């Protein structure tokens, strides 16, 4: 059975304090790993798709990387507006996305 585990569950950072969020997965035949951001009361907002080990993508202060067993979302010099829940999801053989529980990030001034 496909599994997605995100860690830590919650993370508190000072503004400017860089860190990484982890997404470990076990799937048979990965057809995409997706990162989303979700603000309270809103739907998930698409950030990145990664397809193969070694692939990296960047957007502003965020950089996503992928290995055969896990993905990292690196946050460089975060700002308070980066506070949100970050969701990782994988697609294997079907159409559905299989989500982790998310990491709740709080960035304080």
């Amino acid at each position, binding site marked *: 059975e496909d599994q997605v585990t995100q860690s830590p569950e919650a993370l508190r950072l000072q503004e400017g304090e860089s860190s990484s969020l982890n997404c470990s997965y076990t799937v048979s035949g990965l057809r995409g790993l997706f990162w*989303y951001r979700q603000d309270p009361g809103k*739907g*998930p907002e698409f950030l990145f798709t990664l397809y193969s080990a070694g692939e990296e993508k960047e957007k502003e202060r965020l950089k996503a990387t992928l290995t055969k067993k896990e993905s990292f979302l690196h946050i460089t010099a975060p700002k308070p507006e980066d506070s949100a829940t970050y969701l990782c*999801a994988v*697609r294997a053989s079907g*159409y559905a996305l*299989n989500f982790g*529980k998310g990491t709740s990030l709080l960035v304080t001034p």
Partner: protein
Amino acid sequence: GAGVSQSPRYKVAKRGQDVALRCDPISGHVSLFWYQQALGQGPEFLTYFQNEAQLDKSGLPSDRFFAERPEGSVSTLKIQRTQQEDSAVYLCASSLAGARYNEQFFGPGTRLTVL
């Protein structure tokens, strides 16, 4: 451009009532998905449409849940005889073409509370 819209945004139902949740996908998007998100959890897949065809309904938790997309655009998720465990946020997502490789864009969700 307009994103995925859902209505109502909030719905309170008494246990045993039927509810209908609406999703308007991004114009031109072929694929449409419904997910259920419990508090503090990630979204869980319910069902998938490609145009008007429901290709996967493996995630629907019981036969009280029914979804349709009769003209390949707007979709409705219906829950009959609601139970307290149905309380959750129901998310709709759409994607442009074949779902297998394309990212899904989500609506704001409908928060259902069953009393």
